[in-house]
């Protein structure tokens, strides 16, 4: 194949990627878009395999098959509740691949000229941060105990120093290319940087981190494109980079925090009110039977899912309850906060898995005006995203964060295991409101108890 034909095929692949992202603007066309995107990828891979000279065919074929096999296995075996972990893991592999490609390129004498050397070094740094950071994110999402509460003293200073060192380590490469050893030293420092960046980040900030790492994996691919002077790598990489950045922005806005604050800052709960002052004698709880009777009389119900629903794998029990409510003529809708769960859109996927139609699932801004005309709001395993204290302009860690206005509903049922604080570490005055009833239970168990109570009511 001629160089021109190969590049034309790359252009077709790049167009496939762009068209696919465009088709993601609606759930109806998104699945077809995904097929188009994967077709573009296949095209690019096949053309490259046939174009590259003196390939070790057996070796390359076995690598392709091995990766495909593992990929298929991971895609099939991951439960829907494990999606955040899966995305983090795959992200890490992408970053690792970019790092290896940059290293190989340097070794093969491919990187000549100042720009190519700098691009190689940057590709190594970004790839390493993505690789190690994503693996740590994976571990944190899997709740590996040894990753908990690690925030070394002077965290910000260490992070800054490591970043500067990893960049400085590139200087010898530039002065006396190729300087392979320095490339790997810089990448090693960047790997440690990736670990430290992510290890200190709390669970509820994970959506931001996942988006950011996603963006990095795209940037790593794009810089590899600069190294190899391959425009398709640049295009595909920058699309991913842009996608990750957009999502990062959305997540940060939904928490009213800056990116720097999420990455480097720690939540300070010390200014918030004491739990005893907020809750003392004011919290009412109810049994499943009492709540069943309450729900039996409700005309309309809004359900607010949180991470607790995912943890308890209660999505199918929730669907059962909703079906039972709908059978009695009750209108059921779902309200999703942008940062509910551990990755953007986490709750939507969870509800979709339980066959809940997406047109019953509403965004925060669309549903907030409806709470005041709602009989019952059921909050399941969520906390900070419904904390009315966030409406205060300052004085607490979540001040200014947009929330779901559940407290405006006639009655609020909060299904939660205990009064323990959410990620922000502050008490929630919602639980002590006169129109709030606490229902202490595990998400899944509580939902099926409610279902049964409703059947008998």
């Amino acid at each position: 194949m001629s160089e021109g034909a190969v590049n034309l095929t790359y252009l077709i692949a790049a167009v496939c990627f762009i068209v696919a992202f465009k088709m993601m603007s609606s759930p109806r066309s998104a699945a077809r878009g995904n097929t188009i995107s994967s077709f573009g990828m296949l095209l690019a891979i096949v053309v490259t395999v046939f174009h590259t000279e003196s390939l070790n065919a057996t070796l390359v074929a076995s690598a392709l098959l091995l990766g495909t096999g593992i990929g298929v296995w991971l895609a099939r075996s991951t439960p829907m509740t494990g999606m955040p972990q899966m995305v983090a893991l795959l992200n890490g592999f992408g970053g690792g691949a970019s790092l290896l490609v940059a290293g190989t390129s340097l070794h093969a004498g491919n990187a000549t000229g100042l720009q190519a050397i700098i691009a190689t070094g940057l590709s190594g740094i970004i790839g390493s941060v993505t690789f190690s950071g994503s693996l740590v994110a994976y571990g944190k999402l899997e709740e590996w105990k040894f990753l908990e509460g690690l925030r070394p003293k002077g965290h910000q200073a260490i992070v800054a120093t490591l970043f500067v060192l990893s960049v400085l380590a590139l200087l010898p490469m530039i002065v006396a290319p190729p300087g392979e050893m320095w490339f790997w030293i810089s990448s090693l420092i960047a790997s440690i940087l990736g670990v430290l960046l992510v290890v200190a980040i709390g669970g509820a900030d994970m959506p931001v981190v996942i988006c950011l790492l996603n963006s990095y994996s795209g940037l790593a691919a794009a810089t590899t494109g600069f190294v190899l002077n391959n425009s398709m790598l640049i295009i595909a990489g920058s699309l991913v980079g842009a996608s990750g950045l957009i999502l990062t922005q959305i997540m940060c806005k939904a928490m009213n925090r800056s990116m720097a604050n999420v990455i480097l800052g720690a939540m300070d709960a010390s200014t918030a009110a004491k739990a005893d002052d907020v809750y003392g004698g004011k919290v009412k709880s109810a049994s499943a039977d009492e709540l069943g009777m309450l729900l039996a009389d409700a005309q309309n119900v809004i359900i607010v899912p949180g991470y607790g629903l995912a943890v308890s794998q209660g999505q199918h029990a929730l669907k059962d309850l909703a079906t039972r409510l709908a059978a009695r003529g009750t209108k059921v809708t779902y309200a999703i906060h942008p940062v509910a769960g551990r990755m953007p859109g986490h709750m939507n996927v969870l509800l979709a898995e339980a066959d809940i139609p997406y047109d019953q699932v509403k965004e925060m801004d669309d549903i907030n005006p409806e709470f005041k005309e709602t009989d019952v709001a059921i909050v399941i395993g969520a906390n900070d995203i419904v904390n009315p204290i966030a409406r205060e302009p300052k004085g607490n860690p979540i001040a200014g964060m947009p929330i779901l206005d559940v407290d405006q509903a006639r009655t609020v049922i909060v299904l939660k295991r205990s009064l323990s604080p959410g990620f922000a570490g502050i008490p929630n005055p919602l639980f002590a409101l006169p129109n709030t009833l606490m229902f202490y239970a595990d998400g899944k168990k509580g939902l099926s108890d409610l279902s049964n109570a409703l059947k008998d009511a």
Partner: protein
Amino acid sequence: MDQFVAALTIFVLAVFVGFEVIRKVPPPLHTPLTSASNAVSGITVVGALDLAGRGGVLVEVLTFLAIVLAMINVVGGYGVTNRMLKMFKKG
């Protein structure tokens, strides 16, 4: 230098295209978007394939690893995206 500027031009334009196109993806599809873009970032497999023929044991080992990692990323990413998108149904 010319080559670099050409590459930079493509990069900048592609970022703009990315912003315009992806901004329109609605929040319910943000998880599939993340996993799909994840799969696209596995495009580095093309870079690894491109280098695989350069000879030398080290090149073979490094590109082998890179191809495996990137393919897991590509296939796993598209696979989970497909699984998720198939679940989204209208009432």
